[in-house]
């Protein structure tokens, strides 16, 4: 279990991370959300032991993470960090050895992962000659090669096409099944929604929302109502309890204060004409994010 206890990190007078407390059980995928500069990477660096918290403590299985335990941890940094002039093979051998692996283990794992990602032909290619997506795959392999107990993924899906995103997602799922604890950050809410049971939204170093995804959505209160009909629906926005609205191509999406408002809306459109769709939806993580952080994010 990864425990982050009242951790604060200050750089001079600037507080990058402010009193974060998290508990991430073994074998779970945990999402860390936040805009740029929210403190995600600083948090990761503290988990990895690259930075020492100004205050508080981070432990993995009750032990502080240090260079003695670094073989148990895998890290995929936000920006690609590979030697441009080395071949994929040389690269993985070096990085694997630094995580305490033997050459034969590295060989075996490299083959396995390259095959899985359909990238066998790149084994003896220089990294600089690979496409961004393929570099990211190699970066991912470098992070998981030594079968870490704790895997930190900082923006793992950035710059990948949808096919490769799926490929990586399924790999993450499989690692989770094998018992790896995974902490990852992302801008993309749908990735977080799809992968995580628990999450934390950070804003300016503080944790704004944290907990179980379903509970967060449930306790958020506000819901979305999506309506499609053959007549003009724009008058619905003036109904009591409607907070926001968005007119779509063939209908309207409304954010409502609470579930009961949906009933009022349903009453309002009855007998007006043919209704193609009326649906009460859970709020999306994106809605929650915008609400809590107050900024629009991709």
């Amino acid at each position, binding site marked *: 279990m990864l425990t982050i206890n009242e951790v604060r990190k200050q750089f001079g007078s600037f507080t990058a991370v402010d009193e974060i407390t998290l508990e991430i059980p073994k074998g779970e995928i945990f999402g860390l959300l936040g805009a740029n500069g929210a403190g995600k990477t600083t948090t990761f660096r503290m988990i990895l032991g690259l930075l020492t918290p100004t205050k508080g403590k981070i432990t993995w299985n009750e032990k502080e993470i240090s260079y003695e335990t*670094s073989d148990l941890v895998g890290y995929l940094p936000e920006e*690609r*960090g*590979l030697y441009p002039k080395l071949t994929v093979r040389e690269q993985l051998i070096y*990085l694997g*050895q*630094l995580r305490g692996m033997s050459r034969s283990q590295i060989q075996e794992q490299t083959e396995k992962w390259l095959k899985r990602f359909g990238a066998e032909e790149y084994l003896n290619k220089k990294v600089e000659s690979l496409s961004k997506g393929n570099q990211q795959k190699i970066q991912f392999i470098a992070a998981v090669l030594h079968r870490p107990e704790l895997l930190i993924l900082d923006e793992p899906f950035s710059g990948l096409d949808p096919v490769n995103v799926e490929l990586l997602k399924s790999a993450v799922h499989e690692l989770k099944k094998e018992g790896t604890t995974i902490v990852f950050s992302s801008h993309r809410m749908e990735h977080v929604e799809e992968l995580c049971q628990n999450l934390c939204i950070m804003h300016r170093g503080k944790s704004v929302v944290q907990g179980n995804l379903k509970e967060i959505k449930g306790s958020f209160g506000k819901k979305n109502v999506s309506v499609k009909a053959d007549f003009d629906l724009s008058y619905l926005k003036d109904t009591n309890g409607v907070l926001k609205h968005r007119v779509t191509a063939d209908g309207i999406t409304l954010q409502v204060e609470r579930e009961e408002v949906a009933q009022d809306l349903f009453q309002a459109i009855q007998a007006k004409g043919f209704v193609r769709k009326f649906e009460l939806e859970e709020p999306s993580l994106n809605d929650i994010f915008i609400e809590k952080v107050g900024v629009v994010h991709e």
Partner: protein
Amino acid sequence: MSKFMTVMMHTYRSKIKSKPFLISTLITIALLFVVTNMNEITKMFGGDEESKVAVIDKTGNTLPALQEQFKTAGADLKAEVYTKSEKDAEQSVLDGELDGLLIIDKDASGMITGSYKAEDVTNQDLITDIEMALQQIKNKAAAESIGLNQEQLAAIYLPVSFDKESLSETAKSEEEAAQVYILVYVLLFFMYMAVMMYGSMIAVEVATEKSSRVMEILISSVSPVKQMFGKIFGIVLIALTQLALFVAAGFAAVQLNGKLSGSESIIEELKLNEIPVPLIVYALIFFILGFFLYATLFAMIGSLISRVEEVNNIMTPVVIVIVAAFMIAMYGRENPESAFVAGASYFPLFTPMLMLLRVGMLSLPVWEVALGIGVLIAAIGLFAVIGARVYRGGVLMYGNAPSLKLFKQAILLSKQEKKDTTGL
């Protein structure tokens, strides 16, 4: 394999295979062979050919004496009387039939004068030979004119008998001083080369890792200290490999030259094989310690910059220090006793060169040498500690141009880190 070894071997392997390394090694070895065998090579290109000089002897009786002089001096030159006009001779020179034209005449006081004409007057050897021969003849004539005979003339030109002897038991003989000078020169040259080549290699390595962001993965798996020293030792291994190759090649080249020319090899001539063993040991100690000092400095510098292009800017001050050490050593060669040199030899960045110079040239008490080595080791320790800190802090900082402020920032960033995580 420990992680330190992994870093070291990785650095060694990736550099030793690199093209720049192979090319620079081969070129240097080729140069060594060319330089040591220069005399043989010039001979091969026909530098041996006799020069043909036409002589118009207006005095009528100087030519035989001149030819005699050339013979005794062993000059590669054939002087022949020329019977046609000066104009014709000049034409022959331009046509290349003759190498030059010498006109001998007498001035108003009856002294011999010479005038040499050639296509160009760049062949200094030939011109000096002619001038010397004429000088001899003139001297002889002048001596005769005032009634000196051959013996008296010889007595005038006999060099004075002058002996040097040092009274102190431990003082260095002239020969020893020459050996030291060569050794110091070689060491200085190696230091300079090592700092330029390997120093920048270290800085570039670190900067590359930083700019490619691979650093974040690296320092999450190995402590910065292990990483820094793994890198330094890896580069030291490369330096040693390269130097061993150079020394072997240099030795082979000198041997080859000895065989080709049949004369004493340069090693015997300079009695380099008689350099006292302690001096060689000192030279090795100072070289290795000096190398580590500068290597640590460069690793520290490399971690402060975020782009490879900045390596050159930040290297300049270090190169200036090396050049300064070189200048002081040159001065110290003439004035080894100077208090300035003595003082400077305790400044760690100068110690490797200057202390070696002093050990060699003077009879230094052991404690002074020991103090020098101590200062050097202490400086390496200090640089290593600061370097490791800057390294740890610096590798996570990006973007800013290198500056003192950055340096402080890096220290500050790492100061807060606990000892157990720095891996010290």
